[in-house]
């Protein structure tokens, strides 16, 4: 197991071959995005005269810049709110054994099982009555509530495994509960906060169903909805569509490759939680 043998080399070759197959769609994506619509050669033949025309066209026609800003706003806003309220809620829920605490925890955990399709339609009506439909605020409000069960679940699990001596010491020394939370508990929650941050940010950024419902017909679109609208509008113009897809993927992949260690650990982190 420790020496690099011919068998290891064979395995290496097989794994790289698998990676090439997995990467094949990415090659076609870039290949067609760089191709003028007049070029009708096979999609897998390398493009001979690459052009960036599709990218400028897609950027302008799809209003992708605005969608990008909306997506960033919704993601940052929702994740900040849900991390703040869930970590604060997890503190009593993990520490207090009174009946109200256990009841409230079970009630919130019920949210892990309820699919959002059940709540989506009645909530649609409420949002409409409040005049929030079509605004980014509706989405931030929605995700802030939707992600509470999962985030609280992560925080409570982590807190229960953490000794309470530190916060007790702080309280004996005269901290208020809020100070003990802010200066003692919260810093120690950092590992699980990274996990929750990564999983929630990816979930919000990628969600399509909710913005499709709550933003349809408005000018404030998030990236996934803008892309779907773009595909609907330029149905046959695949070179243009592919350029739009590349534009939507690039920011995600830049963040991913820059922070790959924390992101992968975040996704694997559920295993320890």
């Amino acid at each position, binding site marked *: 197991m420790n020496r690099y043998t011919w068998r290891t080399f064979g395995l290496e070759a097989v794994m790289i071959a698998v990676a090439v197959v997995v990467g094949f769609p990415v090659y076609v994506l870039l290949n067609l995005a760089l191709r003028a619509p007049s070029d009708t050669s096979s999609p897998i033949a390398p493009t001979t005269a690459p052009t960036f025309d599709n990218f400028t066209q897609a950027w302008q026609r799809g209003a992708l810049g605005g969608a990008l800003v909306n997506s960033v706003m919704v993601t940052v806003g929702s994740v900040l709110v849900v991390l703040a309220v869930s970590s604060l809620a997890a503190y009593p829920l993990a520490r207090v054994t009174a009946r109200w605490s256990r009841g409230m925890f079970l009630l919130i955990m019920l949210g892990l099982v309820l699919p959002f399709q059940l709540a989506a339609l009645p909530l649609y009506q409420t949002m409409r009555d409040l005049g929030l439909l079509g605004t980014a605020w509706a989405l931030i409000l929605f995700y802030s509530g939707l992600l*509470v069960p999962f985030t609280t679940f992560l925080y409570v699990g982590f807190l229960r495994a953490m000794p309470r001596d530190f916060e007790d010491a702080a309280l004996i020394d005269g901290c208020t509960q809020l100070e003990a939370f802010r200066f003692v508990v919260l810093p120690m929650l950092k590992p699980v906060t990274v996990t929750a941050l990564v999983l929630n940010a990816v979930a919000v950024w990628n969600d399509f169903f909710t913005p499709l419902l709550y933003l349809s017909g408005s000018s404030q679109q998030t990236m996934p909805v803008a892309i779907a609208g773009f595909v609907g509008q330029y149905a046959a113009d695949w070179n243009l569509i592919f350029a739009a897809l590349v534009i939507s993927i690039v920011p995600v992949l830049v963040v991913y490759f820059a922070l790959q260690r924390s992101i992968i650990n975040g996704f694997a982190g559920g295993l320890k939680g």
Partner: protein
Amino acid sequence: MKRFRFGLAPVTVVEDVRTPDRLATATRRRRPSTPPWWFAAPAMLLFAFVVLVPSVRGIYYAFTDWDGLDPHFSVVGLGNFAKMLDDPNAGQAIWHTLLIAVAITLIQNGFGLLLALGVNTIIKSRNVLRVFLFAPAVVTPIVTAYLWRNLLGPDGAVNSLLGVVGLGALRQDWLGDPELALWSIVGVIVWQFGGYSMVIFLAGLQSIPREIYEAAAIDGTSSIRRFWSVVRPLLAPAFTINLMLSIIGGIKLFDQVYALTGGGPGHATDTISTLIYKDAFTLGEFGYSIALAVVLTIIVAIASSGQYFFLARNERAAS
């Protein structure tokens, strides 16, 4: 002496010099107040507003003929559920949903496990491969689905590639053929999330102490035997998480179906979620649509609790 820093003022805590059990009683007696309930209030309010209240209302609407707009509607009892029994689309959608969930669970986790075992070796490309193979999992599903809609088209890259490598006979209309479309969707999901399963299995594999592998290797067992009797039981927590994620993800599937086939051809790939969307927003049958959501809820609840008990038993047996 231990030193802690709270905000600006450094605080010194003097360690207690009394005997341990006296110390324990002493701390218990003067244990400070517990965190107040209102810390949970903001989260609880948001959760109640977004999930709890609308879900309860949803369950109520499932027994009405509400169309989503009209404030006047009547309670129809089990009417919506009876209608579901007569609606071939609903039965089909439920069947597709279960089929997709099971297929994804088996194939994606099988693929992910093989990838994890391959990457958890001394091959030189292991770190690059891990980062690369996981990358599709962070990309927006609706975006990868539109990419695949083109690749799987009659003149798409998949058919071109088959032609180039001499397998032209296997060319298909991957999304247009009602027999095949569902499996094409499963394939796209496995492509995107195989790396996700891999990462979770890999974390499980790396938490197994080296000595255990070495002891098994010294005992001269075959590598398949070693995997089955030694590694597999120790991977139980990773299996639990992976199976949970893929089953529930598969049951709720919407984005990929919407982008790849829109539920078509005909209704050949409709899932419960796409049917909910269509019934509510193109047919205006909110009551019926929410009744479908109730069925979805019941399926998710059965799947997750069944799995929880089954796997919890396995994990106990393994430890």
